[in-house]
């Protein structure tokens, strides 16, 4: 693949395995693609949200009288105006639609207004007088775990504790290394800010919501509960989604927008600004992980023990699931029998945290990869050798007792990454833009040291712990044209092109129409957990296969053949035992065949009190090698090259795959060297793109990517999800390279200049 996928494989009708082009691509380049923020309606009002400036306070009083005096204000609503359930949440319903008596994080919604103009909304929000009485701020994970600390929520200060004990937890290794690792709070920072437009039904009998989300049906369930409407009275349509990365799995503006529309009887549009977006969605959990690795003299792992603490902030979101992902991946992609691990997800007055690409595994990987390097150093082995000696393979058992029956080419990922040529030595001129620090041009070439580092990871695919996961799709074939219907959120990943590729391949059609993505069909589940290729891909594949069976039956009946003799070759139906050969378009003339298919993966189990159980569906693996140049005086880092080999199963679209790999690497690079929401006792210090730094073109490293293509028998298309793995082990690889360049024992990410150039 080597970064020229569009030229290395023919597009051949856009079937599976080719770099078929996305159907929304041209519209997106021309500005004609309708994102959720691009919708407008006749007689539309704007909505906005009043949020708490305090991380923990009692609400003494709220006085909206001055706001009502502003011309153009049509509605002001509070907690008492929520007709149904007062709270929502993906796993536990513990988050208020509006705070009533107490606010538990900075940015918690208290009221919403609807008015004729965004500026009127802003003035009205500013005119609502809220009197707060400050409460002690709980911002420390250890304090939250301490039973003596007063609970800041009726559900307590610990979302979940989980233990894993396996094998002989008392065994000791010849070599023992330990470390404590800190991970900062990362933001998904999708570009397309939260936006929605709600249309009320006459008389308030129902509502239609155009919204950018990852999971239409889950949103609908939570919205309907809060509105006290039957789910079928709440219709959701996917507005174009400007990226998601986990931040659109939770409710943000959905309920508020619907409430304002129902209250005013007019369409209402709500659109967050960037600062509000930082407060309006969950983030990646910050955490602290302590691990002690035991190995024998040959470098084989004997035991892993330690603990993990993730801070979930004020409300539950998916913290309990993130925690399970985290603790079950502390093992890394390495074979080992013995463990003793504990993990806690805490509730504090910090910003709520939940899903972000990698979902608990990013944190775990940062710690276990730091440990592998420590082991290598203690044993005098190279980073590659220690990982090869422990590389997991199919049939190995996890600490949870689950046997890895996925394809598991860990050693191959490492070897193929290792074989990628290293970049040439740096040739920096003074003042070059390519120096560490980029446009600052402050770096001095004589202070630059190069470093190389490694990271390897394992990532579960799909949801875990007994979640009843399914995806539905419908295929309709009329006159040689296939139409596909599904509720799968297209967030940029390219499911829309994959769905077309599947239909073209299975049915031999060229034209595949995609119906509106909405709730007028069964759930597709969330676009998260690297699951849609497997789940919705399986559903589209299943629906197309059912249609093909009906078509074969029809053709076989007309020509007195056994339908089992028929196959699709290109765009034709072919009799494998006779002369018949006819275009699908001709065979399906005048027919209408419609089939719906529900895809399920095999069931999973919950973990028991010792963390034992088959809790995951399948796994994917990846290796990353980072090369960095560091100005050791200024603490500036330039990531020069990322080499990677990723276990992907069957490659379905090389171009889309490369896009996931390069994009994930950029996000992992962000977490390694620049991205962090800085929180000081519950107060967010940098909620803007001026102060929360994202990788730009000047930060983009050269990426050399090799897909490890081994068909995955467990997957409907032989393909593993590829979205999450690229962003997981690249972060520890970059940090290891910085350690290698500087000789410093850096134990936190992101690495800041002071971590490199000031005394620790």
């Amino acid at each position, binding site marked *: 693949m080597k970064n020229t996928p569009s030229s290395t494989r023919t597009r051949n009708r856009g079937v599976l395995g080719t770099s078929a082009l996305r159907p929304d691509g041209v519209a997106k380049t021309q500005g004609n693609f309708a*994102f959720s923020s691009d919708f407008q309606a006749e007689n539309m009002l704007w909505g906005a949200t009043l949020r708490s400036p305090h991380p923990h306070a009692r609400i003494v009083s709220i006085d909206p009288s001055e706001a009502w005096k502003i011309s*153009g204000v049509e509605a002001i609503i509070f907690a008492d105006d929520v007709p149904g359930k007062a709270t929502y949440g993906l796993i536990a319903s513990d988050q208020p639609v509006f705070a009533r008596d107490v606010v538990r994080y900075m940015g918690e919604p208290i009221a919403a207004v609807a008015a004729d103009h965004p*500026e009127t909304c802003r003035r009205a929000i500013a005119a609502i007088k809220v009197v707060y009485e400050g409460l002690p701020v709980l911002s420390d994970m250890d304090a939250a775990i301490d039973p003596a600390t007063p609970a800041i929520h009726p559900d307590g200060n610990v979302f979940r504790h989980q233990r894993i004990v396996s094998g002989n937890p008392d065994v000791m290794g010849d070599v023992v290394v330990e470390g404590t690792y800190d991970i900062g709070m990362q933001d998904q920072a*999708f570009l397309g800010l939260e936006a929605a437009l709600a249309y009320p039904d006459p008389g308030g009998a129902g509502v239609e919501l155009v919204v950018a989300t990852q999971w239409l049906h889950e949103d609908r369930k939570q919205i309907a509960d809060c509105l006290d409407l039957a789910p079928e009275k709440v219709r959701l349509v996917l507005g174009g989604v400007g*990226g998601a990365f986990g931040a659109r799995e939770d409710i943000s503006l959905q309920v508020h927008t619907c409430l304002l529309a129902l209250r005013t009887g007019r369409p209402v549009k709500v659109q967050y600004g960037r600062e509000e977006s930082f407060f309006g969605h969950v983030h990646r959990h910050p955490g602290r992980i302590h691990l002690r690795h035991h190995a024998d003299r040959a470098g084989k792992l004997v035991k892993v023990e330690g603990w993990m603490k993730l801070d979930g902030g004020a409300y539950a979101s998916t913290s309990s699931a993130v925690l399970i992902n985290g603790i079950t991946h502390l093992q890394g992609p390495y074979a080992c029998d013995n463990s003793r691990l504990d993990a806690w997800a805490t509730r504090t007055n910090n910003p709520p945290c939940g899903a972000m690409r990698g979902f608990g595994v990013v944190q775990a990987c940062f710690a276990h990869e730091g440990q592998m390097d420590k082991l290598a150093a203690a044993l005098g082995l190279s980073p590659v050798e220690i990982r090869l000696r422990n590389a997991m393979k199919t049939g190995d058992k996890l600490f949870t007792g689950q046997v890895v029956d996925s394809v598991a080419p860990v050693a191959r990922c490492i070897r193929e990454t290792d074989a990628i040529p290293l970049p040439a030595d740096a040739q920096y001129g003074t003042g070059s833009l390519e120096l560490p620090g980029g446009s600052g041009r402050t770096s001095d070439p004589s202070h630059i040291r190069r470093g190389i580092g490694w990271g390897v990871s394992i990532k579960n695919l799909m949801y875990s712990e007994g979640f009843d996961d399914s995806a539905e799709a419908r295929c309709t074939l009329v006159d040689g044209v296939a139409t596909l219907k599904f509720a799968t959120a297209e967030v*940029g990943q*390219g499911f829309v092109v994959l769905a077309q590729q599947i239909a073209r391949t299975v049915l031999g059609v060229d034209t595949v129409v995609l119906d509106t993505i909405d709730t007028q069909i069964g759930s597709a589940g969330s676009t998260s957990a690297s699951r849609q290729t497997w789940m919705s891909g399986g559903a589209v594949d299943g629906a197309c296969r059912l249609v093909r069976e009906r078509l074969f039956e029809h053709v076989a009946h007309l020509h007195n053949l056994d339908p089992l003799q028929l196959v699709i070759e290109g765009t034709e139906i072919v009799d494998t035992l006779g002369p018949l050969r006819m275009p699908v378009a001709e065979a399906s003339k005048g027919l209408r065949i419609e089939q719906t298919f529900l895809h399920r993966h095999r069931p999973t189990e919950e973990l028991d009190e010792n963390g034992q159980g088959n809790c995951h569906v399948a796994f994917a693996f990846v290796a990353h090698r980072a090369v960095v140049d560091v100005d050791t005086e200024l603490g500036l880092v330039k990531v020069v090259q990322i080499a990677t080999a990723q276990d992907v199963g069957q490659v379905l679209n090389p171009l889309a795959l490369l896009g996931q790999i*390069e994009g*994930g690497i950029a996000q992992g690079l962000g977490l390694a060297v620049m991205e962090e929401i800085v929180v000081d006792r519950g107060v967010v210090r940098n909620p803007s793109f001026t102060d929360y730094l994202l990788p730009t073109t000047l930060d*983009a490293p050269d990426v050399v990517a090799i897909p490890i293509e081994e068909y995955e028998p467990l997957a409907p298309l032989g393909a593993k999800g590829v979205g999450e793995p690229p962003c997981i082990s690249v972060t520890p690889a970059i940090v290891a390279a910085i350690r290698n360049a500087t000789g410093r024992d850096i134990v936190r990410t992101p690495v800041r200049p002071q971590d490199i150039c000031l005394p620790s």
Partner: protein
Amino acid sequence: MNDTTGFYELVVNGKKREVRDSWVGESLLYVLRERLGLMGSKGACEQGECGSCTVLLDGDAVCSCLVLAATATDSEVVTVEGLAADGAPTDVQKAFVEHGAVQCGFCTPGLIVAVHHLLDRNPDPSAIEVKEALSGNICRCTGYGRIFAAVETVVAIRKGAGK
């Protein structure tokens, strides 16, 4: 709103467009989108950091979120919708699609405007010149690799066509 202004005119994509009864504090981005229906320019940061709202103002690439619409009355504004007169995709737009430079697509219109702006001024930019020119356009999906590939292709094709 009470404090609206009467009337002003903008020249957008070669056409005179009237703006009536607007609030004087509205950004060019807001007016283009909400009053003139040109939704191609996107807002993602409101402080000129992300480039999603990039338009050409008298030929300069600017963040339309940082321009007060009422101050642009004497300028020529070109948005992503105005790059191709006939509605067919430009060479840059085609290359973005062909090379996988588009994922979620929210940053794309701003990048398209920025790439046109770059290549109109510098038809043969070096890799670092491309990076510098596009460093004000943040993309969260692609990691930029396919965007560089698209720009390289346009440069090569334009060079070939010029021979």
